[in-house]
């Protein structure tokens, strides 16, 4: 899945920055935090790019920036080489047909008053189009739901079934890229495995490209062809090979924190100490420095840039783990 240098990526994020201001009022100035700071990402057709990080690392904001659901404070979003950063409202509609999203919470992502048929027809209704006949049934088939579900309401479905509806709705226009925002995070592991298998199947049969947002590095390593690790709004490591050993101490710590379903491998767990610092008061140097086991003096004062290591992999660290 390696991308050649001259190929135009289907989705490209270029130096995206997004700051949020909270609090504040008539007399008080709000505090601002940088949710995403200078993130660049190239997603080639057919790729499954995984964005991993803990809550608050900006991965969901990144997904919404890529979807053009929120505007970036700086940077560009390019789709098939075309800059769509300045597009709004009706001008975004051609993009909507090619770029779709599956949301994390299958409980609130479906309007409780709509039957599944209405949910699946909504993509067409939203653009004032009529769906081709049989589309609803085809979509239900595609995500492995019985056609008799068409008349059911979301509350009659289990979480896994609802997430299948969420996926079917995203597929309605036959998109090219689907942004998956933690589609399995609120599901049981057994249902998570079902959904991942379904997504893999759709990737194979429909030639989709995924941007997969997750907090589960084990899952991302299994599912994705390329991995981007985020910490506090910045990319700390890009792995061109999902099976490669991690170079950034944070990626290594993430890997060390995930449990293996094997009681004989217990000793390997080394939990990462401390917690993510407040995004309102970022340390001046490397954001990971306060928790890093490999921290050096310069890490606390200056910020390491994302630099190439082997092949297309990159790491932002002064003292990376040896390969």
């Amino acid at each position, binding site marked *: 899945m390696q991308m050649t240098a001259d190929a135009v990526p289907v989705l490209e994020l270029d130096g995206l920055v997004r700051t949020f201001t909270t609090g504040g009022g008539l007399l008080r100035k709000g505090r601002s935090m940088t949710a995403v700071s200078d993130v660049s990402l190239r997603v080639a057709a057919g790729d499954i790019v995984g964005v991993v990080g803990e809550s608050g690392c900006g991965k969901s904001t990144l997904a919404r920036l890529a979807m053009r659901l929120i505007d970036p404070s700086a940077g560009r979003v390019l789709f098939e080489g075309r800059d769509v950063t300045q597009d709004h409202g009706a001008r975004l509609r051609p993009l909507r047909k090619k770029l779709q999203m599956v949301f994390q919470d299958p409980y609130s992502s479906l309007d409780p008053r709509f039957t599944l048929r209405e949910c699946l027809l909504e993509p067409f209704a939203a653009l004032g189009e009529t769906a081709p006949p049989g589309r609803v049934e085809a979509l239900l088939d595609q995500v492995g739901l019985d056609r008799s579900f068409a008349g059911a309401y979301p509350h009659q479905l289990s979480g896994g079934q609802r997430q299948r509806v969420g996926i079917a709705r995203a597929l309605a226009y036959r998109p090219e890229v689907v942004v998956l925002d933690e589609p399995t995070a609120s599901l049981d592991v*057994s249902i998570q495995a079902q959904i991942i298998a379904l997504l893999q199947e759709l990737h194979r049969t429909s030639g989709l490209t995924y941007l997969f947002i997750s907090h589960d590095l084990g899952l991302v390593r299994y599912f994705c062809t390329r991995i981007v690790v985020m910490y506090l709004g910045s990319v700390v490591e890009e792995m061109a090979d999902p099976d490669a050993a991690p170079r950034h101490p944070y990626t290594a710590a993430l890997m060390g924190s995930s449990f293996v379903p094997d009681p004989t491998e217990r000793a390997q767990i080394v939990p990462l100490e401390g917690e993510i610092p407040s995004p309102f008061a970022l340390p001046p140097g490397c954001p990971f420095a306060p928790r890093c086991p490999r921290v050096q003096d310069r890490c606390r004062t200056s910020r390491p840039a994302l630099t190439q290591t082997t092949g297309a992999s990159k790491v932002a660290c002064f003292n990376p783990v040896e390969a």
Partner: protein
Amino acid sequence: MLLDVRDLSLRIGTVGLLDGLSFSVDRGEVLGLVGESGSGKSLTALALTGLAARMGATITAGSVVFDGTDLVGLKESAYRRLRGKRIGFITQNPMSALDALVTIGDQVDQVSRLHLGLSKRAARAHTVEILSRLRIPEAEVVARAYPHNLSGGMKQRVVIAMALAADPDLIIADEPTTALDVTVQAQIVMMLADLVRKRDLGLILITHDMSVVAQICDKVCVLYAGRVAESGPVRQIFAAPRHPYTEALIGCIPRDGMAPGSLRGIPGTVAAVSQYGADCCRFAPRCCRADALCSTQQPLPVATGTGGMLACHHPVDTPVTEAADADDR
């Protein structure tokens, strides 16, 4: 044995929700109670703490022997002295387990003042000691803070501190790490394992994630639709799972080096309570080894050689019968 549950059955109205559960946990031991949503894990926890009655549930059979006394039929007032004092409870959602308007310290103090009869000052000292033992930095400062000042992981530690405050013998933790990040989950899980060892507690860990079980449990009891599918020592269960459901649950966790497409999950979902069958294996509709026998006769739990139990007509280590084989094709 600290807690010995035998043949526990429970119903709400006419619906039997738990059907003959048996498991036990000793001091210094971690028991994993595993299953998907709807398997009856949380209800079991409520039944053990005597809270199921509030939901209109009645225990119809079985015994829950805690430290020598049977808790079934215990009066609410007696249960109240037990809950919090001898049996600690850790909930899934730390956000809703804490009162937003009361400081952390006061909430933890309450427990030790109520159950240990400590003075205000002694209770606070006790609280600070527990908080710092749970590796909460600057425990005195945190004790004066309100829940919204703390992160999710910190809040979960406070909930654990509340469960520990009265020095209980048994802790029941209902999915204590589901809402947390992986790095925080690792911290909390390792901390719980550490507590069990250092304070000689019994711990019942309720989870749907077999990798957490593998990490800290000594014994595991797999529930499916209100019945025990399989139980036994954790190493045994993981090395050679015998119930197809156990095997499938373990197979749901992605591991390094897994070939793409090899993660299949378990087809379908747990049957709704209203569709529980009596004379059948409730896992049969989702099972790759099921045959006609499984849908007409309930597999009764049989003791295995390793001190566990198994309820399956066609365990994994037996050859698949002709009928099931034909079905497969």
